[in-house]
């Protein structure tokens, strides 16, 4: 018996060929954009090798690779800068992409592995491995990082789904904050009981690329690659999941499998990266957000761009950290927090975002 009606909007009829051309043009534009981002990444890598406490001329960098003569500068390039840059690349990919996957799976645009307490979970298990079990090699305690991520993810999701309405962004965020606090607290407790671990770990705690040899990067490389591969595999299903569980099922997406694969992907990415460099926040939050604004809601493109742009942000933050307080250094985790926090505050104040 309802008699109010709004006039139906007129739908413009587009000829089929024009639409196909439109899609192709968009795809071409997106591909071009990706190529531009890759170029930027290459440039940033170069800067990361060249800039620092001591700026090194590009010629010297070239020589360090191809005409090695064991000068001071050249050894800085090979022994310090290149490992650092490679690690930054991998960490940027890992943190960025894990944030993008988390945002897709939880349908929460303001989430990353730090906010949801996932890094804290990895951190707790690593602190346990180092402090209580006495493990000292990354290859060993990295597995604890994986376990910690899986543990934290499960708990946060379970806790955030409590009550009517399921896992809304606000509930997940609060669950992540609360559980993150528990896990940080427990990790702190372990560190207090094991003062030697405290000393070793307080330098790892901030999230830093400094002082890690190349084998750190090579150790996590296969896991990061596996995580990236898994994420790209489920990207398409995640597009359907974004519409809501019921709708996704009618579209044929297998939600359970998708969720499991996405979880494993986050586990590998965030677990490996946190174990290697410590917890770094905001990269996983900001990069997918900006990327989404550029390429739209298709997860395949979002993931692709995030893989390239994540390291751009992380390496830039690392470079800034090296330059801003010369001859000292700001850890990259500190810089990302100081860039990311104001950006996050600005975002949440804009009416559209806070309408969550």
């Amino acid at each position: 018996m309802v008699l109010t009606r709004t006039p139906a909007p007129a739908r413009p009829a587009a000829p089929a060929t024009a639409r196909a051309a439109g899609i192709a043009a968009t795809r071409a534009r997106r591909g071009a954009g990706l190529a531009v981002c890759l170029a930027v990444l290459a440039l940033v890598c170069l800067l990361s090798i060249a800039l620092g406490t001591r700026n090194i001329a590009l010629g010297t960098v070239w020589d360090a690779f191809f005409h090695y003569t064991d000068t001071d500068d050249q050894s800085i390039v090979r022994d310090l800068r290149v490992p650092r840059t490679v690690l930054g690349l991998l960490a940027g990919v890992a943190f960025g992409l894990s944030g993008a996957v988390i945002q897709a799976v939880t349908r929460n645009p303001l989430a990353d592995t730090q906010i949801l307490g996932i890094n804290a979970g990895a951190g707790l298990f690593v602190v346990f491995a180092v402090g209580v079990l006495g493990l000292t090699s990354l290859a060993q305690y990295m597995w604890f990082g994986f376990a910690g991520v899986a543990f934290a993810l499960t708990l946060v999701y379970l806790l955030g789904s409590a009550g009517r309405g399921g896992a809304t962004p606000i509930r997940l965020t609060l669950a992540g904050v609360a559980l993150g606090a528990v896990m940080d607290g427990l990790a702190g407790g372990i560190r207090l009981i094991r003062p030697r671990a405290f000393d070793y770990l307080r330098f790892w705690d901030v999230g830093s690329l400094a002082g890690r040899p190349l084998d750190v990067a090579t150790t996590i490389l296969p896991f990061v690659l596996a995580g990236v591969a898994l994420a790209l595999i489920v990207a398409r299903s995640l597009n359907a999941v974004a519409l809501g569980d019921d709708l996704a099922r009618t579209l044929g997406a297998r939600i359970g499998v998708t969720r499991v694969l996405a979880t494993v992907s986050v586990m590998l990415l965030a677990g490996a990266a946190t174990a290697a460099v410590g917890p770094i926040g905001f990269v996983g939050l900001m990069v997918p957000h900006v990327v989404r604004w550029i390429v739209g809601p298709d997860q395949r493109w979002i993931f692709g761009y995030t893989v390239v742009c994540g390291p751009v942000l992380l390496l830039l933050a690392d470079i800034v950290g090296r330059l801003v307080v010369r001859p000292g250094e700001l850890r990259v985790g500190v810089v990302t927090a100081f860039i990311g926090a104001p950006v996050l505050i600005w975002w949440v104040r804009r009416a559209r975002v806070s309408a969550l």
Partner: protein
Amino acid sequence: MSLAARDITIGYDRRTISEHLDLVVPESRITAIIGPNACGKSTLLRALSRLLKPSAGEVLLDGRDIHARPAKEVARRLGLLPQSSIAPDGITVAELVARGRFPHQKLIRQWSAGDEAAVVAAMAATGVTELSGELVDTLSGGQRQRVWVAMVLAQQTPIVLLDEPTTFLDIAHQIELLELCVRLNREQGTTMVAVLHDLNQAARYADHLVVMKAGAIVAQGDPRTVLTAELVQDVFALGCRIIDDPETHTPMVIPRSAVGQRVG
């Protein structure tokens, strides 16, 4: 107890919904505000109820600016049934209705005999007395809405505003609620203003109809004079003809049909 809006401009954030709106709510009458989606009817109601402050103009309660009066005093004269309210987990019907007495209570006088009487009367009027000790969570949508109405009635205000009170109710409960409003109006002279979706219900039960479109009031008055086929076409983009409701002799809108009579 008079309620009027004088030359108000209202909106949210940077979006203006209505400008230079004037409305005098007829005392001791039932007024229904109708209009298509997003025409500003809820916004107007919120402005009348002190929830939304106009950026220009004033809303006058008994001749004085409603925002200049203390909040509790306004709540003793004006009751509002909002569109969405949250019943805390584990609250019983009587406890929820009793919260409606807050405007009349003080720190040392938290539960007077008058409070008790008001709650009993409100629950009786809405027919929820048997549900008095039940948990609100366990009630159906219709029952829950009646409990919220009872809470507003317990406030014992001479003016009651209702924001889309019939959503979530099935047809029998919709009619029941509207007839309850008419009874209250006739027995106690309560001024009522309701935002309604259904044109026919509005025409049937309202003494005064206010029709809005795109933030402006395009017509107001007795439903019999206001509701015409031209108006419905203009405001709702719906072709119709108006007949006389055989039950109440108020206008009844019959939409025109493109598909015509059903075969068979």
